[in-house]
């Protein structure tokens, strides 16, 4: 393994340069954020599970009319079923249950896009936890009602 003196010096220099990088990094501030103690901002377009949006004219009810277009268009069959009933004095149906199986959802956004009444949007629940699969089978109408109560 004959090494010329210039190659040796270059090699030794490269080793010292590498050491210089790490020792500089040693004294620089950390770039990590201490997650549970320091929460991060979630951008408004972050894609978690979908949620129902309030109707523009009547904020007490959600804008879904149970047409079922999202059910037909979902590629993973994650929107299991949408049921609705026609109530007195209303032109269109009102959704009574919207079952979303979030375990198979790929957050593609097709349901949000094809909804003719813009009734769906992404939520920002990034830290969902549960012990069983059923914890992620959401009924979006119930979630909507829950949010109405807390707001």
């Amino acid at each position, binding site marked *: 393994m004959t090494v010329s003196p210039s190659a040796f010096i270059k090699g030794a220099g490269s080793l010292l340069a590498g050491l210089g990088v790490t020792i500089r990094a040693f004294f620089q501030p950390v770039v990590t954020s201490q997650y549970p103690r320091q929460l991060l901002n979630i951008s408004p*377009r972050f894609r978690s599970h979908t949620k129902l949006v309030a109707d523009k004219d009547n904020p007490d009810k959600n804008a879904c009319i149970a047409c079922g277009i999202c059910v037909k268009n979902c590629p993973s069959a994650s929107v299991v079923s949408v049921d609705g009933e026609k109530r007195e004095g209303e032109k269109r149906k009102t959704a009574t249950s919207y079952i979303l199986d979030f375990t198979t959802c790929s*957050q593609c956004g097709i349901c949000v896009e094809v909804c003719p009444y813009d009734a769906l949007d992404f939520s920002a629940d990034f830290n969902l936890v549960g012990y069983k699969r059923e914890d992620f089978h959401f009924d979006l109408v119930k979630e909507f009602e829950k949010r109405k109560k807390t707001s």
Partner: protein
Amino acid sequence: MVEKIKTELGAALKEIPIGESDYRERGYHLFAEVASSDLLNVARFFDERGFYLAALICVDYLEYLELVYIFSNHVSLCKVKVALKIEPARPVAPTISTIFDCACWYEREIREFFGVTFEGHPNMTYLFLHEGIDYYPLRKGQIPVSDEDKKSLGSFRPEGGEDTFCVNLGPQHPSTHGVLRVVLKMDGEYIEEAEPVLGYLHRMHEKMAENRGYLQFLPNTGRMDYLGAMSFNLGYVTAVERLCGIAVPDRANYVRVIATELNRLSSHLMWLGAYLADLGALTPFLFVFDDREQINDILEPVTGSRLTYCYFRFGGLYNDVDEAFIAGTKAFIERMKGRFSLYEKLVTGNVIFINRTRGIGVIAKERARKQAVSGPVLRATGIAMDMRKTEPCAAYGEMDFDVPVGTRGDALDMYHVRVKEMENAVKIIEQALAGLPEGPIMTEKVPKKLKPPKGDLYHTVETPRGELGIYIVSDESDTPYRMKWRVPSFSNLMVFPELAKGNLLADAVAILGSLDLVIPEIDR
């Protein structure tokens, strides 16, 4: 050049008509339909003229099975489609793996998915599937797999010899970048044979494509190569737009370029970190994640995802970019330019790293052509072929960037090529940001349910790993009839057994890392 090939091919094939096709619509310049007896002559013809076998696709048309061979050329960029019709009851075809080595695995895949027997194939064993599969998956009907077929396909048994023993590298292994199993036959420290075993991550994306509409298949594209999801998205979206003849507004094209180049940067950075972690240096892995997190933080407010994007739509984008994105990208570019010198000092010049990678895994140009290698691996051998230059989609045609090439084809060259590609990506993003036009991001009047006209299309795109080829056969319905994904890592992995032969185990790990494989895209 196309005329020359047409006349020469016509002379070689005599009675077979050779048609010219509209390259814009079909993705190939010439097409020919041959019989089984002519296939070997045709293959030899293309081999002598320096073509490589870009893709070997099988399509089940019920009355017949069609084998589609796409030959492409690095220099003249001429693409030729050769079709071979075989009868569905007893499908048999001659093998061309003696002429083009890459056909060996292409034909194995077709054998287990379609049941086509290739006469003279050296090693017809299971590639992705196993004996539990009772029907040929990609056939349109339920064609059962006979017991002799199962036995002959399942005949791979690794065993050691007198002085050798067999060791598994993987499937759970920190170095194999995914779920890849390589059966190594070792003689002490040296490797005699390496046989990759695939299929641990097989999710049948090609069959899913036949059962979903064009828009509904879009999320699947991001899952195939999760590190370069934007480029897979781009390839698919531009392929369908080309098939349907949808034009895209300029602003959408520029944003597509910015997003794809950011993704390319992110993918190459990840490769750098993982490669050095394989070699033992654990610090660059974390420095790389620092940069990647910045990219994710830029792309998340726009696309909503951090890794598996589903951002493009047919005719434009899902939503527009805002000032925060542009400002963030500009700040990131400035920061990234400074980071390159950090990687230069920590990695590129390091004498230990150079000694680990120089002269390891040398690929000759001829071997690269026969194995249909593409991407940075191909450019490291000295062939300057980049789909962004040869077939520009989106706004790549208006960008000014270099195509870095190496000289020796070893792992160190592949490293240098990828680092220079990162610098070029920064350059492209700068130009795209500077020239970003105002305007709409989506064309008007894109039908909700796309029904492309009847025909087929072979579309290629440059992903961070190489040439992605998408072959779509449309039958005017709203789901594709057949969609084949020719992924770059599949061909790149084929080179590994011959590179690993005679090397130490440490070198084999270095070679595997330098090829930049992402196993989910191999397994689809």
